[in-house]
């Protein structure tokens, strides 16, 4: 009985997979419309749902802006020729639906959007990691909605964590940036269209990105701490941590990854034991070595001043 149930499940699964595969092939087999109709009204006669019409209330529907689809070929500005599609319904397909089953890959879809959105924050998209990973514009943006979730600070993270699932947990960790509250959002640090820095950061380096809010750490200081100048990410995980201050490990163990100097307990048991070590409780090493981000005090060689 167990075997039969399993076999039944396998067959059912196979049928579903095959049917899904066939369904995916259907649209591709349709010929594309090759001639133009015009205007949104024809399209809206069939596509009369709220979603389709909503585009007219957003930036793309601003007929007063000569650059917009509304001021040009309407729906066909983005979706391509639709004349035969409109007259013969489902016998022909428009060039692009931007739906998840659109056979055009992300880069091809992006060509349409980047025909207009080719500057400022979007200009590096073709060179971005998202483009190379086949992320299409429509995967994040819904241009038919007046309030695009990915553009609103309060809801943007919901879009990003759809793929970056590990950040969903990080956002809820005990040490975190205020992302749930919409006060710090993904695009404060990253440009999803690609940008100057590593990891699609908006600034040229990790540190400069952090300094836009944490300018007090910028220095230069009389006494610098090398990893601090190297990369904030050496010690901090900006997406969230179970350790205080977004640290990648708990002090003193984090510090001991690089330091094993004399006269300091190297482990919580060492020397006279855990119970009387002022290097382990509270802020760990920085109970004394306070200015680990750099000291401007003449007696601050070891960051205690």
């Amino acid at each position, binding site marked *: 009985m167990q075997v039969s149930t399993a076999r039944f499940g396998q067959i059912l699964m196979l049928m579903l997979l095959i049917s899904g595969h066939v369904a995916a092939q259907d649209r591709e087999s349709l010929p594309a419309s090759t001639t133009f109709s015009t205007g949104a009204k024809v399209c809206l006669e069939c596509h009369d749902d709220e979603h389709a019409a909503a585009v007219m209330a957003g930036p793309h529907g601003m007929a007063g802006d000569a650059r917009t689809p509304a001021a040009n070929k309407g729906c066909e500005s983005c979706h391509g020729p639709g004349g035969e599609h409109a007259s013969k319904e489902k016998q022909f397909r428009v060039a692009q639906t931007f739906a998840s089953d659109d056979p055009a890959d992300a880069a091809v879809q992006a060509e349409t959007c980047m025909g207009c959105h080719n500057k400022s924050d979007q200009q590096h998209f073709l060179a971005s990691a998202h483009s190379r990973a086949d992320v299409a514009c429509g995967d994040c943006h819904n241009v038919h909605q007046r309030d695009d979730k990915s553009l609103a600070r309060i809801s943007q993270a919901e879009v990003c964590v759809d793929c970056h699932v590990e950040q969903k947990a990080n956002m809820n960790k005990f040490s975190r940036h205020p992302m749930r509250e919409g006060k710090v959002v993904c695009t404060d640090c990253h440009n999803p269209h690609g940008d100057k820095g590593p990891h699609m950061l908006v600034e040229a380096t990790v540190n400069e990105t952090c300094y836009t809010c944490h300018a007090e750490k910028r220095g230069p200081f009389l006494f610098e701490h090398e990893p601090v100048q190297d990369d904030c990410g050496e010690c901090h995980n900006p997406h969230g941590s179970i350790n205080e201050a977004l640290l990648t490990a708990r002090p003193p163990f984090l510090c001991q990854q690089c330091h094993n*100097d004399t006269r300091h307990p190297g482990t919580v048991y060492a020397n006279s034991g855990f119970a009387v070590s002022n290097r382990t409780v509270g802020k760990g090493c920085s109970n004394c070595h306070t200015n680990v981000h750099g000291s401007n005090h003449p007696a601050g060689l070891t960051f205690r001043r």
Partner: protein
Amino acid sequence: MNSKRTALCMAIAAAAMASSVAIAQDEFGFEDESAPVVKPVYDNHVEFGIGYTDDGNGKFGEYTSGLNSALQSDGPFAVGGLRLSGSDGDSASAWQVAAGMGNGRALEAFYEVQGNFQVGFYGDRLEKIEYHKARSPYQGGSDTLLLPAGFQPGTSVRDGSFFSEENIATTRQTFGFDASKHVSDKWSLSFNAERQDKDGDDTIGGNQGFSGTALLPEPIDYKTDQLTARIEYADKCLQNGLELYYSQFENGNDGLVFDNAQFAPINLEQLALEPDNEFMRVGIDGGYSFDMRTRLSWFADWSRGKQDQDFLPVVLDQAFAPTIDPVFVPSSLDGEVERSAFKLTLVGRPLARFDYRLEYDYRNRENQHDALPVQLVGGATASSGYSSHLYDKETQSFAAEGGYRFANRFRIRGGLELLSTDRDTTTVGESYTDTTDEDRYWLELRLPSVGSFSAKLRAEYNVTDADLSDETLEFISPGGVDRRATPFFLLERSQDVYEINLDYAFAGSVSLYSSFKVIRDNFDNENYGLHDRESDVLNFGLSWSPSNLVAMSAYASFEQYELRQIGRQMGGTAVPYSEWNLKTEDESDAFGLTLDWIVVEGRFDVKADLAYLESDSSYTSSVRESAGIALLTGAMPDSDDQLLRLNIVGNYHFNEQVDVSARYIYESRSANDWAWDSLLTPGVNTTASVVGFAYERPDYDSQALIMSVRYKF
């Protein structure tokens, strides 16, 4: 002027539509092809209501914001907000004023004529509880912290009668102004000015001798001003922007003076707080598209950071070491750091199925000031002094990758990146360079889609070679004896990364995903410090939409991090103690459930969000090699944290104008942390005698109910 421009735009649009209509009528015979009439859109509403929380301050997370801002106090509170927004397609204008009901900011206002100009303003306030109900003998809010009368150095740091309670909390306020103008169809200007104010109290360590310290309430009074101006050219092929950025940081407190709580007689100590600084940068970025599938992108910038704040008096407590002779110290650093960057990227798709990327990247950070000598009091010879260290860094990398798409979304991608980093260290009379070369290779496979099932596999291998200077090697192993740890970013290492992603859409309404990522770092470390690092992250997710009225999603995340390091305690006389191994294990599990349910279409909907997190950190220490003085052994305490958060919002749509919403928040948190708990309890953690600060990790159940009415007009 605006009306003329609007009329002109409308005429162009009408002409374009009319010509297209004519074509369409010929071929397909549509009778009425004019654009649908779009009326101006208005979205105005005001919201007001009341709420109540049974346990406020410091609950509901360490941040408070938006409707939660009132949750800082127990008892009833008022909520409210206003949003006036709209757009007019004919004039391409849009506007918004939002207070408390914006998209995450407390105050937002903008007006734009799309394609012409935009002006806007925003303001925000964010409060963060650093330590809730902390207790300290020092009272915060000032740059001079004194102990209460009768305080006995050393012994009273554990006497709660000298402690008083206060919240260690900071508030960050941001105000900004945006403006942009399209000068022509190819040229545009944009400008942003922003001020951030951060005030309140944080905590900071105040060292009071080799074995003594106290955590102090640090007064925070930061102001950061930032200006960004950009001019941009863009046509179909060429885009280029020139950007200027300026930032100035000002700290209202130069230093912190505090009583030494550990050693009699009480003396004043002092530490420096972050100095004022300024930073400017000029850069260009742009690209040229040879065609829609081949593009060359570039970016280059140059920046300079400066800091010239006067040094503080060297030492107030002359009994405290190290004291240094101020005669040899300049009055300020006169510090200046320059950084430059350059990146050139070529991407192309020469074949429909093949694409590539080639990239060269250069980064340089260089101190322009000199290393300063510092002399010890009574020892004006070079051997008794020390020098500040300057760290410069130069990196160059070259990356190449390519991808080929087969049928049925089967795809293969691979690439390499060669990264070389020179780290220069400069002291007085000495300069040396440590070089690391990192080679990274990766391969990614997206397997052919089978129905709605897709899978992606990725493997990555990094290897780092280090060429360390004689000076660094001597520092790590003076006289050939391994005494110090090697900074882990200078270690040779190999890293393996494996990742698998699975997605399955089931019958159109259910989708499942899972991902598993493994990172293994093996450091070739002959000295103390970090040896191995492992990370395993497993994620599951489920989305289910049984109908257009109900959407549900759930996720589970399991993370595990392991660090292994080796150390050795050294005595003051260089007699070795035993060597030790330490394994740190951090585990974090998270579960979440969301529901979006339209109970009665057009009338009543409910949104619910449930999150549960649990983390645990454990530490295993063992003797690696007995020598000299033996290690003490004992049970090492774990630390753990649990959080349960429920957020339910119900909206009842009375009519076109009126919505009523109710929101219920429940949060339960229980945390144990040996580093913080029972710091004042003798016998439990006698280390408190040198910390002088009391803070118990959170342990609470708290709830809030908020009801409000939203009126649309």
